[in-house]
């Protein structure tokens, strides 16, 4: 850049990335990770600030030509330039995802963004970290011009599009230096009103207050970054740029050293890892998928498959069931049309990838069959046998089950090497996790194939060994058992919910039982209770049994711990539960019944079981354990997952807590050997 400023020949410049599909996707995280003190990080931030300030103050106009991801530091660079031109394709997204990593935009972003797009929009971007598509960015004033991606020409379209972007950017750079083009943007009426309102100090104060309230409510004070972002923006606006930049770099340094930030960055790395297929490319790509059962799960799996271009058969036993499933897929797609993520034409063409049917026609061409029939072993056996009679030799049979051991399902298979578990989470189109379960007999190619399909469906994937409850359900079960005990000890469902959400769980524990379904919870608790014995005890199964017998199945039946009514937002506690709870009441143990103890009783049982899964080899890596817990079960992201939590919190402290509860309740809290090993050697860490 210095060359550009030094040379008289150069009157303007264009910044463009040579890497296709990516402008700059943010700063190097390893650089932050290697810092030991906040001061080091602050220094990195200040270097960035200085660099971008130079760009901003450049007398020669600089045009950022953006194609692909323009995130974090990339966006901060772009908004330091005098002009921005972006390609209008799906890959081009702009955003400040720093908050998702527990930090803040540390290279001037907190100061420039509010000036550029207005305070409310800047808060929205920085506090949610959401990606903004190019066309939206243009409307917001984040980019000045859009360039449509080109189709086939005399070169590969991607190559020519970048060239075209550069040509257009050069034209604008010249225009800017010749003063033929102004960098000032015409603001719309709404924008003008907002910026006028923002010039009134009282309004500004109200906005800070409102945003802060909202953030506090949503983060429950568990995440420090959003509040600091508000603070830094406020400092910049109220006390001027210099104070703003100083505050930004200092707070950036502080945040980068927090446990929350380390936890979130760990999750980020884990997620990247779980988006790769470590089993290599399958021998045969899955092009034709068949799904058995058009229930909530089956239709959900169908939806995430067809919208990636997989030809999918959705088979159900009844026309009514099938129709419900097809409608679910259509609604899922249509909601995207309403949000303008799809055009209605794209929706129709995607929906035509789905074939709904009641028979097995076309299964002879299927490359993979995913069964999502009712969780009943004999039923699963029956469909497996029926399907195996029809499908080609290479076809993979995947079972979507949350608890039935895959090896038991595969027991009746003629080709157990082709049988695998694919445990999706509900709702399938929203939950990112896919847990793939391999048996001893599952072949590597079958696994590769399942992972490839899962990745195509946009899932974050963990691959675990077969066993009762696999990994996710197995970790959840002891915690659920503790939930029952806590309820039996007289804690109100509402109180329990607020205790768990205040701890960082996205859904309260009692609500979670209702969401999962009381019958399902009972089913799983019985099965796993048989398999694991006393360790899974605690609460009384009788509670779930009585609920099922009264028809309190949770959300799906309209009543569980709460009452669910269409259109009623604040759900009420189901008073009919009082009797059941009273009849099963056990006296609380006062030593371990403080709010904090209740929270930790839930958490430590979860964590202990997770570590045991690693110890027993159900889990291959701790990273997968963290991803599975956070993305599948809603383990508090601020803790980074059970393994990261042990690392950051200290294994000894976790063991101490477990011992304390063990003394009261016994074996259910006995720490597993691997956890004890970690406690004994404090330098041992699960996550590097």
């Amino acid at each position, binding site marked *: 850049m210095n060359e550009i400023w030094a040379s008289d020949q150069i009157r303007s410049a264009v910044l463009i990335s040579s890497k296709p599909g990516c402008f700059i996707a943010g700063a190097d995280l390893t650089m932050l990770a290697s810092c030991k003190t906040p001061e080091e990080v602050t220094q990195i931030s200040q270097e960035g600030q200085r660099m971008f300030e130079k760009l901003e103050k450049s007398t020669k106009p600089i045009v950022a030509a953006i194609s692909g991801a323009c995130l974090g530091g990339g966006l901060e660079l772009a908004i330091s330039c005098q002009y921005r031109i972006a390609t209008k394709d799906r890959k081009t997204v702009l955003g400040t995802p720093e908050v998702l990593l527990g930090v803040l935009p540390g290279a001037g972003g907190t100061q420039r963004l509010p000036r550029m797009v207005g305070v409310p929009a800047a808060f929205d971007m920085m506090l949610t970290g959401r990606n903004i598509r190019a066309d939206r960015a243009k409307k917001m004033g984040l980019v000045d011009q859009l360039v449509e991606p080109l189709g*086939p*020409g*005399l070169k590969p*379209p991607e190559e*020519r599009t970048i060239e075209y972007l550069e040509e257009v950017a050069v*034209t*604008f750079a010249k225009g800017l230096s010749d003063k033929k083009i102004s960098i000032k943007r015409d603001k719309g009426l709404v924008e003008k009103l907002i910026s006028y309102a923002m010039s009134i100090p009282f309004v500004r104060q109200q906005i800070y207050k409102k945003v802060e309230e909202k953030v506090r409510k949503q983060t429950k004070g568990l995440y420090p970054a959003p509040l600091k972002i508000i603070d830094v923006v406020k400092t910049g606006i109220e006390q001027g740029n210099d104070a703003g930049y100083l505050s930004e770099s200092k707070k950036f340094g502080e945040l980068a050293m927090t446990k929350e930030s380390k936890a979130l960055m760990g999750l980020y790395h884990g997620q990247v890892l779980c988006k790769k297929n470590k089993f290599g490319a399958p021998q045969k790509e899955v092009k034709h998928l068949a799904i058995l059962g058009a229930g909530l799960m089956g239709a959900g799996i169908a939806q995430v498959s067809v919208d990636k271009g997989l030809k999918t058969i959705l088979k159900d036993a009844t026309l009514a069931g099938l129709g419900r499933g097809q409608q679910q897929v259509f609604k899922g797609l249509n909601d995207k049309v309403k949000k303008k993520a799809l055009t209605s034409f794209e929706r129709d063409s995607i929906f035509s990838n789905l074939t709904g049917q009641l028979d097995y026609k076309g299964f002879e061409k299927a490359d993979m069959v995913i069964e999502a029939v009712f969780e009943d072993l004999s039923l699963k056996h029956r469909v497996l046998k029926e399907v195996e009679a029809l499908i080609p030799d290479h076809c993979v049979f995947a079972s979507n089950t949350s608890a039935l051991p895959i090896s038991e399902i595969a027991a009746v298979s003629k080709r157990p090497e082709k049988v695998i578990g694919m445990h999706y989470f509900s709702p399938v189109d929203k939950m990112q996790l896919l847990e793939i379960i391999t048996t001893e007999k599952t072949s590597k190619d079958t696994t590769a194939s399942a992972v490839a399909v899962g990745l195509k469906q946009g899932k974050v994937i963990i691959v675990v060994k077969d066993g009762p409850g696999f990994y996710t359900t197995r970790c959840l079960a002891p915690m659920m058992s503790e939930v029952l005990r806590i309820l039996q000890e007289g804690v109100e469902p509402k109180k329990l919910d607020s205790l768990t959400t205040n701890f960082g769980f996205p859904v309260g524990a009692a609500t979670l039982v209702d969401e999962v379904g009381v019958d399902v919870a009972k089913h799983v608790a019985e099965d796993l209770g048989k398999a694991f014995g006393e360790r899974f005890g605690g609460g009384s199964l009788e509670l779930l049994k009585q609920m099922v017998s009264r028809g309190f199945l949770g959300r799906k039946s309209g009543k569980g711990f709460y009452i669910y009514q269409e259109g009623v937002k604040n759900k009420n506690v189901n008073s009919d539960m009082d009797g059941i709870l009273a009849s099963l009441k056990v006296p609380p143990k006062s030593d371990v019944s403080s709010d904090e103890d209740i929270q930790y009783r839930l958490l430590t049982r979860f964590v202990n079981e997770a570590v045991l899964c690693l110890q027993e080899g159900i889990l291959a890596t701790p990273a997968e354990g963290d991803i599975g817990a956070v993305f599948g079960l809603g383990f508090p992201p601020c803790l980074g997952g059970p393994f990261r939590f042990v690392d950051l919190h200290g294994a000894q402290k976790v063991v101490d807590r477990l011992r304390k509860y063990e003394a009261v309740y016994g074996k259910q809290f006995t720490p597993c050997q691997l956890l004890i090993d970690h406690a004994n050697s404090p330098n041992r860490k699960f996550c590097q």
Partner: protein
Amino acid sequence: MTSILTYTFKNLPNTSKWALQSLRPLSCSSQLRSAPAAQTKSKKTLAKPNIRNIVVVDGVRIPFLQSGTSYKDLMPHDLARAALLGLLHRTNVPKDVVDYIIFGTVIQEVKTSNVAREAALGAGFSYRTPAHTVTMACISANEAMTTGIGLIASGQYDVVVAGGVELMSDVPNRHSRKMRKMMIELNKAKTLGQRLSLILKFRLNFLSPELPAVAEFSTSETMGHSADWLAAAFAVSRLDQDEYALRSHSLAKKAQDEGLLSDVVPFKVPGKDTVTKDNGIRPFSQEQMAKLRPAFIKPYGTVTAVNSSFLTDSASAMRIMAEEKALAMGYKPKAYLRDFVYVSQDPKDQLLLGPTYAIPKVLEKAGLTMNDIDAFEFHEAFSGQILANFKAMDSDWFAQNYMGRKTKVGSPPLEKFNNWGGSLSLGHLFGATGCRLVMAAANRLRKEGGQYGLVAACAAGGQGHAMIVEAYPK
């Protein structure tokens, strides 16, 4: 070569006029290079054994007028009727000899959705002559002709009139769906109470109308945008596009002045003067053209109002016959209609590349090469579209990567190309341009000499068409 130059050029620190100008001749001539000297034809005739020879006896069109001018108060079937009457007058055919009538149209007037029948009735054709209307965007008239060819070739009929009509001065602006729904329900409502309760549902936004646009339904993109992107994808410069448009206008002017556009028949517009010639020919100067702002991709696009074809009102009609029938009735046909193809591609990125895909196919079918063609008549939707098609046809890379062909087909030599103007200058009727192209090819072969003409056009929906026209021996 051009792209390399442009590439290095734009990395230079500063613009200077001379550099730009030095590029210009290069960029134009590289693709529009002259064809090899006339060769002997690889074939004598394209007649095929056991297939009827189909001839066009003659074809006419009423003058092509820019929308909103003399035809603006008429209805589409008025224009179609005028074309039919012109054809009757020109070819002197008894009306009852005509077996069947087919018209192409795109923007439908809902009152006359089968405009072919309405026009035929008005023109005094026999009540017993059936008629139907086809639609296939800009190649609707081609579809009308080839439908006729099919009917004759299969032996069903001997004499078919094919044509096309479009009236862009009046397009069906509709009430919103909500308003339409309410009006239909009001019509069905029996009691005052029902009516009142329906009327109470009325909201002001029901009144916002639905306007038709020259846009793809599937991609919601305006064709002008697609043309601009296509030009960019093939690196066709603004200057080249303007030059090409200028060529079209000057050739059209010349052809008009020299009286070559013999397919035009005068039309006495009720209440107005008789229209005798096309009114869209505007020979601009290079400077005037350069001043125009981009019409679609603002502010940096290359497609402008002048290097695009304009909205046009008019109609055309032609008589297609089995050769033996024509000879038996004592007619002297103008040309044979030979092999034709329809193609279709991705409507998003290859919307306007129809000719590129269609031409190698039709040439192969007929057993001809580009060198055999004496007269090219392409539909000029946009300058950029024509030049992009030239580049695509001239690219081995494109042929191999997108068309599954080993080599390029080659681009047409410019001196044989649209010599009497094209859609840019004469105007473009979505529904009727096909007939103009065929008649221009036939008339040019008669006038300039030569045996084969090649007609090609692109159309909305990513479709395309090409047909071989063979001169009838004199």
